[in-house]
């Protein structure tokens, strides 16, 4: 994996801003959905589609593509917006989110949109499927990689730990788990509801390589992914520290935005703020 040039970094920062604007527009049009996690993972999804993964939007079922699984399906808006902005489907389609007949279901459904790789929403299930895929690649001696994006709170599900144990057993170095470590869940702080720390140590104990990064800094995310891809003999976890609601000041750090969308007026404010940020990125480039 190559390092980012300054020019490419700026392009991706602009792209992440586009992805955030797409999230706000889609959620406002839908009238329901999950804002905070979607916004805070815009940089990770931009880095994945824009630099880290081997993929081709024109050939979503290309056999040798890297696989990206979104385990925490409720932040589907960020994946849809990133897919649209990287050419998987027209950006206008984002406005069909959660609407009757749309391919953009409230939670991702592979049968409706195969590039999603799987169907998700019930929490704690993505890593186990990623383990199966990574093992299949090993059995077939293929070099594609598997990336699984998880929330932090879904580490409260038992199945996730079964999968962690299994990835360690099979030395799945073609598997990278990326945790959206935003410290929030629907009912409050993860550390109040059911403490997860020391999260990295728990992965280490299960024979994983643990890498930390700033999940709202594309350069930091790419460096973490480089380390992950270079790891031999172990699955890797990237603990991506994020600010919930990142990019929209009235949402940032407020867990109550976990499961609700902005109304029309709030969406207008958010888009105004994001547009100003976009112009700053371009001015500073």
């Amino acid at each position: 994996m190559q390092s980012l040039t300054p020019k490419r970094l700026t392009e991706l920062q602009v792209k992440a801003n586009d992805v955030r604007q797409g999230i706000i527009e889609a959620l406002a049009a839908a009238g329901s959905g999950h804002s905070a996690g979607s916004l805070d993972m815009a940089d990770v999804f931009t880095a994945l589609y824009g630099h880290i993964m081997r993929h081709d939007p024109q050939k979503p079922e290309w056999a040798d593509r890297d696989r990206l699984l979104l385990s925490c399906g409720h932040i589907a808006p960020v994946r849809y917006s990133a897919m649209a902005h990287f050419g998987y489907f027209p950006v206008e389609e984002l406005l069909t989110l959660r609407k009757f007949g749309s391919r953009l279901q409230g939670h991702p459904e592979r049968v409706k949109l195969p590039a999603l790789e799987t169907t998700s929403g019930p929490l704690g299930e993505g890593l186990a499927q990623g383990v199966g895929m990574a093992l299949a690649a090993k059995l077939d001696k293929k070099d594609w990689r598997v990336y699984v994006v998880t929330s932090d709170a879904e580490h409260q599900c038992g199945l996730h730990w079964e999968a962690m144990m299994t990835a360690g057993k099979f030395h799945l170095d073609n598997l990278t788990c990326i945790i959206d470590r935003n410290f929030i869940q629907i009912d409050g702080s993860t550390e109040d509801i059911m403490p997860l720390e020391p999260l990295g140590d728990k992965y280490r104990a299960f024979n994983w390589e643990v890498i930390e990064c700033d999940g709202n800094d594309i350069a930091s995310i790419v460096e973490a992914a480089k380390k992950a891809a270079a790891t031999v003999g172990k699955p890797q976890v990237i603990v991506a520290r994020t600010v919930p609601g990142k990019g929209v000041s009235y949402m940032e750090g407020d867990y109550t935005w976990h499961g609700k969308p902005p109304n029309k007026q709030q969406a207008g404010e958010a888009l105004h703020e994001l547009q100003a940020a976009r112009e700053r990125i371009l001015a500073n480039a």
Partner: protein
Amino acid sequence: MPSADTKDVAAHAMHLVDYRDAATIQHVPTRNGFGEGLIEAGNRNKNVVAICADLAESTRMEGFKKAHPEQYIEIGVAEQLLVAMAGGLAAAGKTPWIASYAMFNPGRSWEQVRTIMALNESNVKIAGAHAGVSVGPDGATHQAIEDIAIMRVIPHMMVVVPCDSVQTKKATIALSEKFGPAYLRFARDKSAIVTTEETPFEIGKAQTFRDGNDVAIVACGILLYNALVAAEELAREDGIECRVVNNHTVKPMDEGAIDAAARECGAIVTVEEHQVHAGMGSRVAEIVAQHHPVPIEFVGVQDQFGQSGEPTELIEHYGMGTAAIKAAARKAYKRKS
């Protein structure tokens, strides 16, 4: 069958053994058929993989492990993982068979089965071993008698309950070669073999094992043999000629065969080693109620849990032996007016 008369046309067509001669009947667990079928499926297709939740010997996956070690995966006691991981393998082109006791898979893993296998239209095959009260001494915690209900209600799911070990082998091979999510249910204890290598088998196609137009006994799984014995005794004792239908595919059920049984026999008895609520018989009732309502009696577990005991003892206690089937058939016959 050796003693051919007009009543045996169906048995001849189906190449059955002479099930009336108890002395010559062989008894082999249906799980053995699964084990043999899985090895054959692995021979035919290297993409068939098997994952087991720490029960290789008792589910009979052990043979596959020896025959195809490179296609065998051990994950320990983790039934939700079994389904989810298999979903990943299937997404990458494998045909995974996953095995545990039916009580734990799909018993413990139902939501993963629904989301990852069915909604996702994934090519994962579940082997549900030790189903029914005939698992015996292990008791109620290990006796899956609700599994057909929770699987048949899921869209896209195939549900197959073969009648003996020979048919279980065929069903294992057939399901391996048919794309889509599937549940194969079989049992622990030795049970009568009534079919032969020559007996046809097709998923979704019910089989008439005995001709008769007074009452239709529609059975699945190892109780099919009890149904045949009951039918012979009813003919001898009461002159009631029962049709016996091997309804091995609970989903998609052969609606034509059920409808024909209702129209031609005018009364039905369903027989399954499962709760009568929401099982195979309930699906039969749904079809019959919609197309041609006739009296139906339901042989199975009557809304209660099992307990420890010997298999035969439990089958009798919970009303699934030949005497219970005969009583149900007489009642159904009387209800025809």
